[in-house]
C-alpha cells in the first residue's frame, strides 16, 4: 500500500431514498493525516453522505474503497470494526443510561469468561470519565451518573470522546461543534488536529467557516447532493468559501440586498417568508 492510496475513497456514489435522489455521483478521497471539510447548506446531503460511509445507509450505486479495496458495509458495526468512527449529528448518547454504559454501548468491555461474561462497570466508568475529562470537562468525575443529567455540550463532548476513543483509522464528525462553547469547540479543533497528526483520516462537517479554515486541508462543497467544488487549502479565500457554503449565493450580494431593503423600509429587516432564489 503506497502512501498515496487514500484511506477512504468514494467513487461515483449515488444514494436515493425511493424516488428521492439525495446524493449524486459523489467522488471523494481522504488520505492519511488529512482533514476533509465537508461543507454545504442545510439539506445538501452531508449527513446522508457520512451515514453512507458509516454503514447506516448503503449506496444505491457506486463504491466505497478502504485502503484501495472496495468495501460494503451492511451494518454500522462493520464500519466500526474497520476503524471508522462516526459522531452523528444528533444523539449518540442515551439519556437514561450511565455515562460509562452510554460510552460503551455496542462495544461493552467484559470480564469473566465463557457465557459468564459480565459488563465491566469499573473499567467502563474509568475510561469514559477519563476520556471526557481529557476533553476539558472536568466536572464529570463519576461514570455512574446518568447522561440525561449532563448539559447539551457535555453530552456532545461525550459522544465525540467516544468516537475519538474508538476511531482507529477514520474519524467522521458531523457538526461536532454545533452545541459547544468556545472552549470546547476549540478543543474539538485541537482534537481534529491531533487525530490528523496521528495519521487518521478525518471528515469534518461544519457550518462555521472559521472552524473549517482552522483545520481543513481539503474542502468539498455539496450543493443539492452533488459536489459543487473541491479544492485544497489556500486555493480559495474565506469569502469565496463563505459564498459556497451559502449554497453558491454571493453572501456580499445577500447582505447588500438586506441592507437595501432596510433603507427603503424604515430600518425593518425583510420578512422571513421569502421564496428561495
Amino acid at each position: 500500500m503506497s502512501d498515496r492510496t487514500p484511506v477512504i475513497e468514494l467513487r461515483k456514489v449515488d444514494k436515493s431514498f425511493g424516488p428521492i435522489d439525495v446524493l449524486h455521483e459523489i467522488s471523494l478521497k481522504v488520505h492519511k493525516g488529512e482533514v476533509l471539510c465537508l461543507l454545504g447548506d442545510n439539506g445538501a446531503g452531508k449527513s446522508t453522505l457520512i451515514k453512507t460511509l458509516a454503514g447506516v445507509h448503503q449506496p444505491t450505486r457506486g463504491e466505497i474503497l478502504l485502503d484501495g479495496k472496495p468495501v460494503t458495509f451492511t451494518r454500522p458495526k462493520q464500519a466500526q470494526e474497520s476503524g471508522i468512527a462516526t459522531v452523528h449529528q444528533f444523539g449518540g448518547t442515551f439519556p437514561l443510561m450511565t455515562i460509562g454504559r452510554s460510552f460503551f454501548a455496542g462495544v461493552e468491555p467484559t470480564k469473566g469468561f465463557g457465557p459468564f461474561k459480565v459488563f465491566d462497570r469499573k473499567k467502563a466508568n474509568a475510561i469514559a470519565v477519563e476520556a471526557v475529562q481529557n476533553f476539558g470537562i472536568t466536572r464529570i468525575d463519576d461514570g455512574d451518573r446518568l447522561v440525561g443529567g449532563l448539559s447539551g455540550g457535555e453530552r456532545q463532548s461525550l459522544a465525540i470522546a467516544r468516537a475519538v476513543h474508538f476511531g482507529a483509522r477514520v474519524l467522521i464528525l458531523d457538526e461536532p461543534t454545533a452545541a459547544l462553547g468556545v472552549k470546547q469547540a476549540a478543543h474539538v479543533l485541537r482534537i481534529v488536529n491531533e487525530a490528523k497528526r496521528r495519521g487518521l483520516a478525518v471528515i469534518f462537517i461544519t457550518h462555521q467557516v472559521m472552524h473549517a479554515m482552522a483545520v481543513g486541508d481539503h474542502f468539498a462543497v455539496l450543493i443539492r447532493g452533488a459536489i459543487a467544488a473541491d479544492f485544497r487549502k489556500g486555493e480559495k479565500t474565506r469569502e469565496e468559501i463563505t459564498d459556497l457554503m451559502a449554497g453558491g449565493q454571493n453572501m456580499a450580494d445577500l447582505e447588500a440586498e438586506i441592507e437595501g431593503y432596510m433603507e427603503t423600509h424604515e430600518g425593518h429587516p425583510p420578512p422571513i417568508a421569502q421564496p428561495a432564489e
Partner: protein
Amino acid sequence: MTEATTTTATTSGRPGLDVLGLFRRPEIGAFAGLVLVFCFFTYFGWDRNFLSPLAAASWLNFASTIGIIAIPIGFLMIAGELDISVGAMVPAAKIILATATGFYGLDIWLGILITFSLAALVGWINGMLVVRTQVPSLIVTLATLFSVAGLTLFLSLYLTDTTQLALRDDDTRPVVEWLMGSYHTLQLGENGPTIWRGIQSSVFIWIAMAVACYYFLHHSPWGNWIFALGGDQESARNAGIPINRLKIGLFMLTAMAAALTGMCETILSNSASTTTQFTLIFNTIIAVVVGGVLLTGGFGTVAGIFFGTATLAIVQQGINYTQFDRNLSNLIIGIMLLIAVLMNDTFRKMATNWSTGKKK
C-alpha cells in the same frame, strides 16, 4: 486512539452506604409499594390467616403465572416495544402441548419442544413484522393476538373436535410433572415447621428466571443493548447494536415465556382450553409498570418487575383473606397503577439529577 486510556481515571471514592443513590433505583419504589401492600393485607387479613403458608402459596402461585411473562414483557418495554399477543400464546401453547402429547400420544419432551418451537415462530413473526413494517408493536401484536387465538380455536376443532383437551399424568413423565406441574411442600423433619406448602413448580421457575434475567439485563453486555435500544433507537443503531435482531429475539423470548406458562398450567391442571386470556395481558403490563419500568422505554429493572408482580398478586389474592368485597381489588390496582406511574416520573427525575460528586 486507544493508547491514551490506561485506567488511571478518578472514580470518586464512594461512601459505604449511599442513601441518595438508593433512591435513584426504580426497584426501590416498587419494593416500598410491595411492603405497603403486604402490611395492609397482613393487618386486614389477620383474622383470616393472610400470613399462613397457604395464603402465601395462593398469591405466589398466582404471581408466577404473571411473572414468567412479565419479565420479558418488561424487557420489551425497556426496549420501547410492547407485546399483547401473549394473551393468545398461553392458550395456544396449552392446546399445542395437549394435542401433541395428550391427543397424538407423542413423548412429553417432544411435545414441549414442538410447543417452544411454534412459540418461537410466533415471536419471530411478531418481531419481523415490527422491524420490517415499522408499525407500532401494539398494533402488530394486537393483530397476532387475534390471529393466534383464531388459529388455535380452528386447529383445535379441526384436529381434535373439541376446545377442551386433557393431558393425563401418565401421558407425561414424573420428572416433567415435578419440574413444571406439581405442588411442592417443604417441611423440616416429621413434625417440624412447614417452610412452604402447596407451591407450584412455576413459582420456582419464575424465581430462577428472575435471577437469570437479572444477570442478563444488568450484567451482561446484551442488557446494555436493550437499554440503548429503548433510550434512542437511532443512536443504538449507529453505535453498531444489531437492533433488529435484538428486537426479534426479545419477541421470541416473550412468546416462549408465555408458552412456558401455558405448559406449566396444562401439566398442573391436566387440561387445556382455547380461551384467550385477556386479563393476563393487562396483568403483565400492570406488573411491569408498577415495577417501575418506564412506558416510553430505556429504564427499568428486573427486581422492580419482580416486586411489581408480587404486589399485584398480593392485591388480587389477598383480598380473599379480608372482609373487603372481592371486587374492590381492581379499584386498589387502578389506584396503585396511577400512583406507580406518577412515582416513576419522580424517580426518573431524581435518577437523572443524582450524582455522587454533588455533595456540596
